[in-house]
Protein backbone atom coordinates (compact mmCIF):
# COMPACT_ATOMS: atom_id res chain seq x y z
CA UNK A 1 0.00 0.00 0.00
CA UNK A 2 1.45 3.35 -0.99
CA UNK A 3 2.08 6.15 1.46
CA UNK A 4 -1.07 7.99 2.47
CA UNK A 5 -3.48 5.58 0.84
CA UNK A 6 -6.60 4.96 2.86
CA UNK A 7 -8.38 1.67 3.28
CA UNK A 8 -11.69 3.43 3.50
CA UNK A 9 -12.86 6.73 2.18
CA UNK A 10 -13.30 9.66 4.52
CA UNK A 11 -10.80 8.39 7.07
CA UNK A 12 -7.76 10.34 8.16
CA UNK A 13 -4.41 9.67 6.68
CA UNK A 14 -2.02 7.50 8.66
CA UNK A 15 1.66 8.06 8.10
CA UNK A 16 3.84 5.02 7.50
CA UNK A 17 6.18 6.36 10.17
CA UNK A 18 3.26 6.12 12.61
CA UNK A 19 2.72 2.51 11.64
CA UNK A 20 6.40 1.72 12.16
CA UNK A 21 6.27 3.46 15.55
CA UNK A 22 3.22 1.42 16.57
CA UNK A 23 4.97 -1.81 15.57
CA UNK A 24 7.95 -0.89 17.70
CA UNK A 25 5.73 -0.04 20.67
CA UNK A 26 3.73 -3.26 20.28
CA UNK A 27 6.92 -5.30 20.31
CA UNK A 28 8.02 -3.60 23.51
CA UNK A 29 4.60 -4.19 25.08
CA UNK A 30 4.74 -7.87 24.09
CA UNK A 31 8.20 -8.13 25.66
CA UNK A 32 6.83 -6.71 28.93
CA UNK A 33 3.72 -8.90 28.79
CA UNK A 34 5.77 -12.06 28.52
CA UNK A 35 8.27 -10.89 31.13
CA UNK A 36 5.61 -9.94 33.68
CA UNK A 37 3.74 -13.24 33.27
CA UNK A 38 7.04 -15.11 33.43
CA UNK A 39 8.01 -13.37 36.67
CA UNK A 40 4.52 -13.87 38.11
CA UNK A 41 4.76 -17.54 37.13
CA UNK A 42 1.08 -17.32 36.28
CA UNK A 43 -1.23 -15.48 33.90
CA UNK A 44 -2.61 -15.65 30.37
CA UNK A 45 0.00 -15.02 27.68
CA UNK A 46 -1.96 -16.28 24.65
CA UNK A 47 -4.93 -13.91 24.82
CA UNK A 48 -2.77 -11.01 26.02
CA UNK A 49 -0.56 -11.27 22.95
CA UNK A 50 -3.48 -11.62 20.52
CA UNK A 51 -5.09 -8.45 21.95
CA UNK A 52 -1.89 -6.37 22.18
CA UNK A 53 -2.08 -4.61 18.80
CA UNK A 54 -5.69 -3.50 19.34
CA UNK A 55 -4.92 -2.12 22.81
CA UNK A 56 -1.76 -0.36 21.55
CA UNK A 57 -3.65 1.23 18.63
CA UNK A 58 -6.42 2.44 20.95
CA UNK A 59 -4.17 4.00 23.57
CA UNK A 60 -1.47 5.37 21.24
CA UNK A 61 -3.42 6.54 18.19
CA UNK A 62 -7.17 6.49 18.75
CA UNK A 63 -8.36 7.38 22.24
CA UNK A 64 -8.55 10.79 23.84
CA UNK A 65 -7.15 10.16 27.31
CA UNK A 66 -4.72 11.66 29.80
CA UNK A 67 -2.40 9.48 31.90
CA UNK A 68 -1.91 12.41 34.28
CA UNK A 69 -5.64 12.77 34.79
CA UNK A 70 -7.17 9.30 34.46
CA UNK A 71 -10.62 10.53 35.54
CA UNK A 72 -10.75 13.46 33.10
CA UNK A 73 -14.36 14.29 32.19
CA UNK A 74 -15.22 13.48 28.60
CA UNK A 75 -12.29 11.10 28.04
CA UNK A 76 -12.67 8.09 25.81
CA UNK A 77 -13.13 4.96 27.88
CA UNK A 78 -11.76 1.47 27.33
CA UNK A 79 -13.15 -1.62 29.06
CA UNK A 80 -11.22 -4.87 28.83
CA UNK A 81 -14.07 -7.35 29.07
CA UNK A 82 -11.72 -10.28 28.45
CA UNK A 83 -10.03 -9.32 31.70
CA UNK A 84 -7.51 -12.16 31.59
CA UNK A 85 -5.65 -10.21 28.88
CA UNK A 86 -4.82 -7.52 31.46
CA UNK A 87 -1.03 -7.91 31.20
CA UNK A 88 -1.31 -6.20 27.79
CA UNK A 89 -3.43 -3.40 29.25
CA UNK A 90 -1.15 -3.02 32.29
CA UNK A 91 1.96 -2.87 30.10
CA UNK A 92 0.40 -0.12 27.95
CA UNK A 93 -0.84 1.88 30.95
CA UNK A 94 2.60 1.65 32.59
CA UNK A 95 4.39 2.66 29.38
CA UNK A 96 2.11 5.72 29.14
CA UNK A 97 2.75 6.71 32.75
CA UNK A 98 -0.51 5.80 34.50
CA UNK A 99 1.62 4.15 37.18
CA UNK A 100 5.26 3.21 37.86
CA UNK A 101 6.62 0.63 35.44
CA UNK A 102 8.22 -1.25 38.33
CA UNK A 103 4.69 -2.37 39.27
CA UNK A 104 4.68 -4.65 36.21
CA UNK A 105 7.22 -6.98 37.77
CA UNK A 106 5.07 -7.47 40.88
CA UNK A 107 1.99 -8.64 38.96
CA UNK A 108 -0.18 -11.14 40.87
CA UNK A 109 1.95 -10.95 44.03
CA UNK A 110 0.54 -10.27 47.51
CA UNK A 111 0.30 -6.55 48.14
CA UNK A 112 0.92 -5.61 44.48
CA UNK A 113 -1.05 -2.90 42.69
CA UNK A 114 -1.62 -5.12 39.67
CA UNK A 115 -4.24 -7.76 40.36
CA UNK A 116 -4.61 -10.99 38.37
CA UNK A 117 -7.63 -9.49 36.65
CA UNK A 118 -8.42 -5.78 36.14
CA UNK A 119 -9.59 -3.82 39.18
CA UNK A 120 -10.68 -0.18 39.22
CA UNK A 121 -8.25 0.35 42.10
CA UNK A 122 -5.54 0.47 39.38
CA UNK A 123 -5.05 3.92 37.76
CA UNK A 124 -6.43 3.90 34.21
CA UNK A 125 -8.52 0.74 34.66
CA UNK A 126 -12.17 1.67 34.10
CA UNK A 127 -13.96 -1.52 35.17
CA UNK A 128 -13.30 -4.55 37.33
CA UNK A 129 -13.57 -7.37 34.83
CA UNK A 130 -12.51 -10.92 34.25
CA UNK A 131 -15.71 -12.78 34.93
CA UNK A 132 -16.61 -13.06 31.27
CA UNK A 133 -19.58 -11.20 29.82
CA UNK A 134 -19.77 -8.62 32.59
CA UNK A 135 -17.35 -6.06 31.19
CA UNK A 136 -19.41 -5.82 28.02
CA UNK A 137 -22.53 -4.90 30.00
CA UNK A 138 -20.52 -2.46 32.12
CA UNK A 139 -19.34 -0.77 28.91
CA UNK A 140 -22.96 -0.57 27.70
CA UNK A 141 -23.86 1.13 31.00
CA UNK A 142 -20.93 3.55 30.66
CA UNK A 143 -21.88 4.38 27.06
CA UNK A 144 -25.47 5.01 28.15
CA UNK A 145 -24.28 7.23 31.01
CA UNK A 146 -22.04 9.23 28.64
CA UNK A 147 -24.98 9.75 26.26
CA UNK A 148 -27.13 10.96 29.16
CA UNK A 149 -24.41 13.47 30.01
CA UNK A 150 -24.37 14.69 26.41
CA UNK A 151 -20.71 13.76 25.96
CA UNK A 152 -19.19 13.25 22.52
CA UNK A 153 -16.70 10.62 23.62
CA UNK A 154 -16.42 7.00 22.54
CA UNK A 155 -16.54 3.92 24.73
CA UNK A 156 -14.44 0.95 23.58
CA UNK A 157 -14.79 -2.61 24.78
CA UNK A 158 -12.70 -5.65 23.95
CA UNK A 159 -14.28 -9.09 24.14
CA UNK A 160 -12.77 -12.51 23.74
CA UNK A 161 -14.30 -14.80 21.16
CA UNK A 162 -14.81 -17.58 23.69
CA UNK A 163 -16.43 -14.93 25.89
CA UNK A 164 -19.21 -14.64 23.31
CA UNK A 165 -20.48 -18.00 24.53
CA UNK A 166 -21.73 -16.21 27.68
CA UNK A 167 -25.44 -15.45 27.52
CA UNK A 168 -24.84 -12.07 29.13
CA UNK A 169 -22.94 -10.95 26.01
CA UNK A 170 -26.15 -11.21 24.00
CA UNK A 171 -28.21 -9.51 26.69
CA UNK A 172 -25.76 -6.62 26.49
CA UNK A 173 -25.73 -6.68 22.68
CA UNK A 174 -29.52 -6.33 22.67
CA UNK A 175 -29.46 -3.46 25.15
CA UNK A 176 -26.75 -1.51 23.28
CA UNK A 177 -28.68 -1.60 20.05
CA UNK A 178 -32.04 -0.96 21.75
CA UNK A 179 -30.64 2.17 23.41
CA UNK A 180 -28.99 3.28 20.14
CA UNK A 181 -25.48 3.45 21.56
CA UNK A 182 -23.52 4.55 18.51
CA UNK A 183 -20.86 5.84 20.93
CA UNK A 184 -19.92 2.24 21.69
CA UNK A 185 -17.31 0.40 19.64
CA UNK A 186 -16.59 -3.23 20.46
CA UNK A 187 -13.84 -5.56 19.35
CA UNK A 188 -13.94 -9.34 19.37
CA UNK A 189 -10.44 -10.74 19.68
CA UNK A 190 -11.15 -13.62 17.29
CA UNK A 191 -8.17 -15.87 17.97
CA UNK A 192 -10.36 -18.97 17.65
CA UNK A 193 -8.97 -20.68 20.76
CA UNK A 194 -10.32 -21.07 24.27
CA UNK A 195 -9.09 -23.10 27.28
CA UNK A 196 -10.53 -26.43 26.18
CA UNK A 197 -9.61 -26.11 22.51
CA UNK A 198 -10.76 -24.52 19.29
CA UNK A 199 -13.86 -22.33 19.77
CA UNK A 200 -15.61 -24.08 16.91
CA UNK A 201 -15.10 -27.48 18.58
CA UNK A 202 -15.98 -26.41 22.12
CA UNK A 203 -19.07 -24.37 21.23
CA UNK A 204 -19.47 -23.10 17.70
CA UNK A 205 -19.48 -19.29 17.36
CA UNK A 206 -19.53 -18.73 13.61
CA UNK A 207 -20.94 -16.75 12.07
CA UNK A 208 -20.16 -14.12 14.70
CA UNK A 209 -20.49 -11.32 12.19
CA UNK A 210 -24.03 -12.34 11.29
CA UNK A 211 -24.93 -12.83 14.93
CA UNK A 212 -23.99 -9.25 15.89
CA UNK A 213 -25.67 -7.94 12.72
CA UNK A 214 -28.85 -9.74 13.72
CA UNK A 215 -28.64 -8.01 17.10
CA UNK A 216 -28.66 -4.60 15.41
CA UNK A 217 -24.94 -3.81 15.30
CA UNK A 218 -22.86 -2.46 12.43
CA UNK A 219 -20.18 -5.10 12.02
CA UNK A 220 -16.70 -4.91 10.49
CA UNK A 221 -14.12 -7.63 10.04
CA UNK A 222 -10.41 -6.89 10.09
CA UNK A 223 -6.96 -8.32 10.60
CA UNK A 224 -6.45 -7.54 14.29
CA UNK A 225 -2.68 -7.31 13.85
CA UNK A 226 -2.81 -4.72 11.07
CA UNK A 227 -2.61 -1.23 12.60
CA UNK A 228 -3.81 0.47 9.45
CA UNK A 229 -6.95 -1.66 9.38
CA UNK A 230 -7.58 -1.21 13.11
CA UNK A 231 -7.26 2.58 12.97
CA UNK A 232 -9.13 3.09 9.70
CA UNK A 233 -11.98 0.84 10.76
CA UNK A 234 -12.36 2.64 14.08
CA UNK A 235 -12.41 5.96 12.25
CA UNK A 236 -15.12 4.70 9.92
CA UNK A 237 -17.10 3.27 12.84
CA UNK A 238 -16.83 6.56 14.73
CA UNK A 239 -18.04 8.56 11.77
CA UNK A 240 -21.25 6.54 11.44
CA UNK A 241 -23.56 8.38 13.83
CA UNK A 242 -26.51 6.23 12.83
CA UNK A 243 -27.83 5.07 16.20
CA UNK A 244 -26.21 1.66 15.89
CA UNK A 245 -23.41 0.27 18.07
CA UNK A 246 -20.32 -1.00 16.19
CA UNK A 247 -18.58 -4.34 16.48
CA UNK A 248 -15.21 -5.04 14.94
CA UNK A 249 -14.42 -8.73 14.57
CA UNK A 250 -10.63 -8.73 14.70
CA UNK A 251 -9.06 -11.90 13.35
CA UNK A 252 -5.99 -12.53 15.48
CA UNK A 253 -3.46 -15.17 16.37
CA UNK A 254 -3.33 -16.38 19.93
CA UNK A 255 0.17 -15.93 21.34
CA UNK A 256 1.07 -13.56 18.48
CA UNK A 257 4.74 -12.54 18.42
CA UNK A 258 6.25 -15.55 20.17
CA UNK A 259 6.78 -18.37 17.67
CA UNK A 260 6.17 -21.28 20.02
CA UNK A 261 3.11 -19.63 21.62
CA UNK A 262 1.37 -18.77 18.35
CA UNK A 263 -1.87 -20.66 17.86
CA UNK A 264 -0.86 -22.91 20.76
CA UNK A 265 -3.69 -23.60 23.20
CA UNK A 266 -1.14 -24.65 25.81
CA UNK A 267 -0.40 -20.99 26.46
CA UNK A 268 -3.95 -19.81 27.16
CA UNK A 269 -3.52 -19.68 30.92
CA UNK A 270 -0.01 -20.94 31.50
CA UNK A 271 3.12 -18.92 32.17
CA UNK A 272 6.32 -19.76 30.29
CA UNK A 273 8.95 -21.62 32.33
CA UNK A 274 12.43 -20.11 32.70
CA UNK A 275 13.78 -21.59 29.51
CA UNK A 276 10.68 -20.60 27.50
CA UNK A 277 10.78 -17.13 29.00
CA UNK A 278 14.36 -16.61 27.89
CA UNK A 279 13.56 -17.85 24.39
CA UNK A 280 10.44 -15.66 24.11
CA UNK A 281 12.20 -12.53 25.32
CA UNK A 282 14.99 -13.12 22.82
CA UNK A 283 12.43 -13.27 20.00
CA UNK A 284 10.82 -10.03 21.20
CA UNK A 285 14.07 -8.10 21.68
Amino acid at each position, binding site marked *: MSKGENLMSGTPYIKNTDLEELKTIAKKIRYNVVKMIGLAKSGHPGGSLSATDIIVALYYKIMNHDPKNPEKKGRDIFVLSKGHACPALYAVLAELGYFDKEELWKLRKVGALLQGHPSISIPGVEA*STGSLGQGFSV*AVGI*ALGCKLDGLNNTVYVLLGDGECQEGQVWE*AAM*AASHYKLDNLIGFVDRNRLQIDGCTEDVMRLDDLKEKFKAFGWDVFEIDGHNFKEIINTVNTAKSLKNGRPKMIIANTIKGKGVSFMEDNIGFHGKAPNEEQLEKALKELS
Partner: protein
Amino acid sequence: MKYKLGEKKGMRTAYGETLVKLGKELPNLVVLDADLSGSTKTAMFAKAFPDRFFNVGIAEQNMMSMAAGLAKTGKIVFASTFAMFATGRAWEQIRNSIAYPNLNVKIVATHSGITVGEDGATHQMTEDIAIMRCIPNMRVISPTDYYETKSVIEWCARNEGPVYVRMPRRDTETVFSSEEDAKFQFGKGRILEEGSDLTIVATGEMVPEAIKALELLKEDEIEGQLISMATIKPIDEEMIVNFTNDFIISIEDHNIIGGLGSAIAEVIADHGLNKRLLRIGIRDVFGISGSATDLLKYYGLDGEGIYRRIKEELEKQ
Protein backbone atom coordinates in the same frame (compact mmCIF):
# COMPACT_ATOMS: atom_id res chain seq x y z
CA MET B 1 -47.97 -0.77 73.45
CA LYS B 2 -46.22 2.26 72.10
CA TYR B 3 -46.66 1.09 68.50
CA LYS B 4 -50.11 0.31 67.14
CA LEU B 5 -50.65 -1.49 63.88
CA GLY B 6 -52.13 0.77 61.22
CA GLU B 7 -53.80 0.09 57.90
CA LYS B 8 -52.13 -2.10 55.31
CA LYS B 9 -49.90 -0.19 52.92
CA GLY B 10 -47.40 -1.35 50.32
CA MET B 11 -43.68 -0.94 50.82
CA ARG B 12 -43.45 -1.22 47.03
CA THR B 13 -45.72 1.81 46.71
CA ALA B 14 -43.52 3.69 49.15
CA TYR B 15 -40.54 2.80 46.94
CA GLY B 16 -42.21 4.11 43.77
CA GLU B 17 -43.41 7.29 45.46
CA THR B 18 -40.00 8.01 46.95
CA LEU B 19 -38.23 7.46 43.63
CA VAL B 20 -40.47 10.09 42.04
CA LYS B 21 -39.75 12.53 44.87
CA LEU B 22 -35.99 11.90 44.64
CA GLY B 23 -36.06 12.15 40.85
CA LYS B 24 -37.09 15.78 41.19
CA GLU B 25 -34.28 16.55 43.63
CA LEU B 26 -31.46 14.46 42.15
CA PRO B 27 -30.96 14.93 38.40
CA ASN B 28 -28.31 12.18 38.31
CA LEU B 29 -30.63 9.50 39.69
CA VAL B 30 -31.47 6.78 37.15
CA VAL B 31 -33.61 3.66 37.47
CA LEU B 32 -33.31 0.27 35.79
CA ASP B 33 -35.84 -2.53 35.72
CA ALA B 34 -36.08 -5.92 34.04
CA ASP B 35 -39.65 -6.03 32.71
CA LEU B 36 -41.29 -5.92 36.13
CA SER B 37 -41.69 -2.17 36.54
CA GLY B 38 -45.42 -2.44 37.17
CA SER B 39 -44.82 -4.84 40.05
CA THR B 40 -41.73 -3.20 41.52
CA LYS B 41 -43.42 0.22 41.14
CA THR B 42 -40.46 1.71 39.27
CA ALA B 43 -43.11 2.39 36.59
CA MET B 44 -44.06 5.42 38.69
CA PHE B 45 -40.58 6.83 38.14
CA ALA B 46 -40.64 5.78 34.46
CA LYS B 47 -43.79 7.82 33.96
CA ALA B 48 -42.39 10.91 35.66
CA PHE B 49 -38.86 10.68 34.22
CA PRO B 50 -38.95 8.60 31.02
CA ASP B 51 -35.47 9.81 30.01
CA ARG B 52 -33.89 8.46 33.17
CA PHE B 53 -35.64 5.09 33.25
CA PHE B 54 -34.24 2.11 31.40
CA ASN B 55 -36.06 -1.15 30.94
CA VAL B 56 -33.46 -3.79 30.08
CA GLY B 57 -35.99 -6.49 29.31
CA ILE B 58 -35.87 -9.90 30.95
CA ALA B 59 -32.09 -9.76 31.39
CA GLU B 60 -31.14 -9.33 35.03
CA GLN B 61 -27.45 -10.13 34.63
CA ASN B 62 -27.03 -7.40 32.05
CA MET B 63 -29.06 -5.05 34.24
CA MET B 64 -26.69 -5.40 37.20
CA SER B 65 -23.51 -4.91 35.17
CA MET B 66 -25.09 -2.03 33.22
CA ALA B 67 -26.03 -0.46 36.55
CA ALA B 68 -22.35 -0.65 37.47
CA GLY B 69 -21.39 1.12 34.23
CA LEU B 70 -23.93 3.87 34.81
CA ALA B 71 -22.66 4.33 38.36
CA LYS B 72 -19.13 4.67 36.97
CA THR B 73 -20.34 7.75 35.06
CA GLY B 74 -21.52 9.37 38.29
CA LYS B 75 -25.14 8.29 38.37
CA ILE B 76 -27.06 7.21 41.47
CA VAL B 77 -28.47 3.94 40.14
CA PHE B 78 -31.50 2.05 41.42
CA ALA B 79 -31.93 -1.41 39.87
CA SER B 80 -35.09 -3.35 40.58
CA THR B 81 -36.72 -6.68 39.94
CA PHE B 82 -38.02 -9.53 42.11
CA ALA B 83 -35.71 -10.68 44.91
CA MET B 84 -35.29 -14.10 43.27
CA PHE B 85 -33.96 -12.73 40.01
CA ALA B 86 -32.06 -9.77 41.46
CA THR B 87 -30.01 -11.76 43.93
CA GLY B 88 -30.27 -15.28 42.54
CA ARG B 89 -29.97 -14.93 38.79
CA ALA B 90 -27.56 -12.01 38.96
CA TRP B 91 -25.61 -12.79 42.14
CA GLU B 92 -22.23 -12.90 40.49
CA GLN B 93 -22.85 -9.70 38.54
CA ILE B 94 -23.72 -8.01 41.84
CA ARG B 95 -20.57 -9.38 43.41
CA ASN B 96 -18.08 -8.69 40.64
CA SER B 97 -19.52 -5.74 38.70
CA ILE B 98 -21.01 -3.77 41.62
CA ALA B 99 -19.68 -4.76 45.05
CA TYR B 100 -16.01 -5.46 44.22
CA PRO B 101 -15.50 -1.97 42.68
CA ASN B 102 -17.81 -0.57 45.43
CA LEU B 103 -20.06 1.30 42.99
CA ASN B 104 -23.07 3.44 43.81
CA VAL B 105 -25.82 0.97 42.91
CA LYS B 106 -28.93 0.36 45.00
CA ILE B 107 -30.50 -3.01 44.38
CA VAL B 108 -34.08 -2.71 45.50
CA ALA B 109 -35.87 -6.02 45.23
CA THR B 110 -39.54 -6.67 45.77
CA HIS B 111 -41.39 -9.99 46.21
CA SER B 112 -39.05 -11.28 48.91
CA GLY B 113 -39.86 -14.25 51.07
CA ILE B 114 -42.58 -16.85 51.23
CA THR B 115 -45.38 -14.28 51.08
CA VAL B 116 -44.94 -13.99 47.31
CA GLY B 117 -47.67 -16.59 47.66
CA GLU B 118 -49.42 -18.36 44.83
CA ASP B 119 -46.46 -18.29 42.40
CA GLY B 120 -44.75 -20.86 44.60
CA ALA B 121 -41.20 -21.97 45.31
CA THR B 122 -39.52 -20.76 42.11
CA HIS B 123 -40.51 -17.19 42.97
CA GLN B 124 -40.27 -17.27 46.77
CA MET B 125 -36.85 -15.90 47.64
CA THR B 126 -35.86 -17.10 51.09
CA GLU B 127 -32.09 -17.06 50.65
CA ASP B 128 -31.43 -13.46 49.56
CA ILE B 129 -30.33 -12.07 52.92
CA ALA B 130 -27.79 -14.88 53.25
CA ILE B 131 -26.28 -14.47 49.80
CA MET B 132 -26.19 -10.67 49.88
CA ARG B 133 -24.88 -10.52 53.44
CA CYS B 134 -21.75 -12.50 52.58
CA ILE B 135 -20.61 -10.10 49.84
CA PRO B 136 -18.00 -7.56 51.03
CA ASN B 137 -19.03 -3.86 50.69
CA MET B 138 -22.73 -4.82 50.47
CA ARG B 139 -25.19 -3.42 53.01
CA VAL B 140 -28.50 -5.25 53.58
CA ILE B 141 -31.72 -3.53 54.63
CA SER B 142 -35.19 -4.94 55.18
CA PRO B 143 -37.57 -2.03 55.95
CA THR B 144 -40.32 -2.42 58.55
CA ASP B 145 -43.28 -0.77 56.87
CA TYR B 146 -44.49 1.74 54.28
CA TYR B 147 -43.17 4.76 56.15
CA GLU B 148 -39.77 3.33 56.98
CA THR B 149 -39.33 2.22 53.35
CA LYS B 150 -39.59 5.87 52.28
CA SER B 151 -36.90 6.83 54.73
CA VAL B 152 -34.70 3.87 53.72
CA ILE B 153 -34.88 4.73 50.00
CA GLU B 154 -34.06 8.35 50.78
CA TRP B 155 -31.06 7.19 52.82
CA CYS B 156 -29.90 4.92 49.97
CA ALA B 157 -30.03 7.75 47.44
CA ARG B 158 -28.04 10.09 49.66
CA ASN B 159 -25.31 7.69 50.76
CA GLU B 160 -22.59 6.34 48.46
CA GLY B 161 -22.03 2.67 47.79
CA PRO B 162 -23.89 -0.55 47.15
CA VAL B 163 -27.01 -1.46 49.15
CA TYR B 164 -29.48 -4.32 48.92
CA VAL B 165 -33.04 -3.56 50.02
CA ARG B 166 -35.68 -6.30 50.19
CA MET B 167 -39.41 -5.83 50.51
CA PRO B 168 -42.47 -8.07 50.24
CA ARG B 169 -45.09 -8.24 47.54
CA ARG B 170 -48.04 -7.92 49.92
CA ASP B 171 -49.21 -4.81 51.69
CA THR B 172 -48.47 -4.92 55.41
CA GLU B 173 -49.79 -3.08 58.45
CA THR B 174 -47.94 0.13 59.17
CA VAL B 175 -46.01 0.16 62.42
CA PHE B 176 -45.00 3.81 62.40
CA SER B 177 -47.39 6.73 62.03
CA SER B 178 -45.44 8.90 59.62
CA GLU B 179 -42.19 9.11 57.71
CA GLU B 180 -40.82 11.31 60.46
CA ASP B 181 -41.79 8.80 63.11
CA ALA B 182 -40.12 6.08 61.00
CA LYS B 183 -36.90 7.97 60.33
CA PHE B 184 -34.37 5.30 59.40
CA GLN B 185 -31.12 5.04 61.28
CA PHE B 186 -28.69 2.94 59.31
CA GLY B 187 -27.12 0.11 61.30
CA LYS B 188 -29.35 0.60 64.32
CA GLY B 189 -31.97 -1.72 65.70
CA ARG B 190 -35.05 0.00 67.05
CA ILE B 191 -36.75 -0.85 70.35
CA LEU B 192 -40.49 -0.86 69.72
CA GLU B 193 -41.48 -2.26 73.11
CA GLU B 194 -39.76 -2.88 76.42
CA GLY B 195 -40.21 -6.13 78.33
CA SER B 196 -38.14 -8.12 80.82
CA ASP B 197 -38.98 -11.74 80.00
CA LEU B 198 -37.61 -12.17 76.50
CA THR B 199 -36.46 -10.24 73.43
CA ILE B 200 -37.98 -10.64 69.99
CA VAL B 201 -35.91 -9.37 67.07
CA ALA B 202 -37.97 -9.17 63.88
CA THR B 203 -37.21 -7.79 60.47
CA GLY B 204 -39.31 -6.37 57.64
CA GLU B 205 -42.81 -7.71 57.16
CA MET B 206 -42.40 -9.93 60.22
CA VAL B 207 -42.53 -6.96 62.60
CA PRO B 208 -46.35 -6.63 62.50
CA GLU B 209 -46.63 -10.39 63.10
CA ALA B 210 -44.23 -10.08 66.03
CA ILE B 211 -46.40 -7.30 67.47
CA LYS B 212 -49.42 -9.62 67.27
CA ALA B 213 -47.46 -12.41 68.98
CA LEU B 214 -46.32 -10.03 71.70
CA GLU B 215 -49.90 -9.03 72.44
CA LEU B 216 -50.85 -12.70 72.84
CA LEU B 217 -47.89 -13.27 75.15
CA LYS B 218 -49.01 -10.29 77.22
CA GLU B 219 -52.33 -12.03 77.86
CA ASP B 220 -50.26 -14.79 79.49
CA GLU B 221 -48.40 -12.14 81.48
CA ILE B 222 -45.21 -12.61 79.51
CA GLU B 223 -43.50 -9.30 78.88
CA GLY B 224 -41.47 -9.27 75.70
CA GLN B 225 -39.04 -6.68 74.42
CA LEU B 226 -39.49 -6.06 70.69
CA ILE B 227 -36.77 -4.93 68.33
CA SER B 228 -37.24 -4.01 64.71
CA MET B 229 -33.98 -4.82 62.94
CA ALA B 230 -34.18 -3.11 59.56
CA THR B 231 -30.44 -3.14 58.91
CA ILE B 232 -29.32 -6.75 58.74
CA LYS B 233 -25.81 -5.89 57.58
CA PRO B 234 -24.05 -4.38 59.37
CA ILE B 235 -26.03 -5.87 62.25
CA ASP B 236 -26.39 -3.71 65.38
CA GLU B 237 -23.76 -5.57 67.37
CA GLU B 238 -23.77 -3.10 70.22
CA MET B 239 -27.49 -3.54 70.79
CA ILE B 240 -27.27 -7.33 70.77
CA VAL B 241 -24.32 -7.38 73.18
CA ASN B 242 -26.33 -5.22 75.58
CA PHE B 243 -29.52 -7.29 75.57
CA THR B 244 -30.53 -7.81 79.18
CA ASN B 245 -32.93 -10.67 78.52
CA ASP B 246 -31.42 -14.13 78.17
CA PHE B 247 -33.97 -15.55 75.74
CA ILE B 248 -33.76 -14.08 72.25
CA ILE B 249 -36.11 -14.89 69.36
CA SER B 250 -35.36 -13.92 65.78
CA ILE B 251 -38.18 -13.74 63.23
CA GLU B 252 -37.74 -13.47 59.47
CA ASP B 253 -39.49 -14.45 56.25
CA HIS B 254 -36.27 -16.14 55.12
CA ASN B 255 -34.43 -19.40 55.58
CA ILE B 256 -33.18 -19.65 59.17
CA ILE B 257 -29.78 -20.46 57.63
CA GLY B 258 -27.84 -17.32 56.82
CA GLY B 259 -30.42 -14.66 57.59
CA LEU B 260 -31.22 -12.40 60.55
CA GLY B 261 -31.12 -15.27 63.06
CA SER B 262 -27.69 -16.30 61.85
CA ALA B 263 -26.43 -12.72 62.04
CA ILE B 264 -27.56 -12.56 65.69
CA ALA B 265 -26.07 -15.99 66.40
CA GLU B 266 -22.72 -14.78 65.05
CA VAL B 267 -22.71 -11.85 67.49
CA ILE B 268 -23.68 -14.10 70.40
CA ALA B 269 -20.90 -16.54 69.51
CA ASP B 270 -18.27 -13.86 68.82
CA HIS B 271 -18.84 -12.28 72.21
CA GLY B 272 -19.36 -15.54 74.10
CA LEU B 273 -22.72 -14.33 75.35
CA ASN B 274 -24.72 -16.69 77.50
CA LYS B 275 -27.98 -16.35 75.57
CA ARG B 276 -30.51 -18.76 74.23
CA LEU B 277 -31.56 -18.04 70.63
CA LEU B 278 -34.69 -19.32 68.94
CA ARG B 279 -34.61 -18.73 65.18
CA ILE B 280 -38.08 -18.49 63.67
CA GLY B 281 -38.26 -18.50 59.89
CA ILE B 282 -38.38 -20.92 56.99
CA ARG B 283 -36.74 -24.08 58.26
CA ASP B 284 -34.53 -24.94 55.27
CA VAL B 285 -37.33 -26.05 52.96
CA PHE B 286 -38.65 -24.82 49.64
CA GLY B 287 -41.97 -23.01 49.72
CA ILE B 288 -45.32 -24.03 48.25
CA SER B 289 -48.16 -22.20 46.54
CA GLY B 290 -50.87 -20.55 48.59
CA SER B 291 -52.12 -17.18 49.66
CA ALA B 292 -49.72 -15.12 51.75
CA THR B 293 -52.01 -15.34 54.77
CA ASP B 294 -52.39 -19.12 54.48
CA LEU B 295 -48.65 -19.59 53.99
CA LEU B 296 -47.77 -17.51 57.03
CA LYS B 297 -50.09 -19.73 59.02
CA TYR B 298 -48.68 -22.92 57.41
CA TYR B 299 -45.09 -22.00 58.25
CA GLY B 300 -45.97 -20.68 61.71
CA LEU B 301 -44.96 -17.14 60.81
CA ASP B 302 -48.21 -15.37 61.67
CA GLY B 303 -48.73 -13.78 65.09
CA GLU B 304 -50.50 -16.86 66.38
CA GLY B 305 -47.82 -19.28 65.10
CA ILE B 306 -44.99 -17.21 66.52
CA TYR B 307 -46.78 -17.03 69.87
CA ARG B 308 -47.24 -20.83 69.97
CA ARG B 309 -43.62 -21.50 69.05
CA ILE B 310 -42.35 -19.17 71.78
CA LYS B 311 -44.65 -20.75 74.35
CA GLU B 312 -43.38 -24.20 73.41
CA GLU B 313 -39.82 -23.10 74.00
CA LEU B 314 -40.68 -21.42 77.28
CA GLU B 315 -42.27 -24.66 78.50
CA LYS B 316 -39.07 -26.57 77.62
CA GLN B 317 -36.94 -24.20 79.67
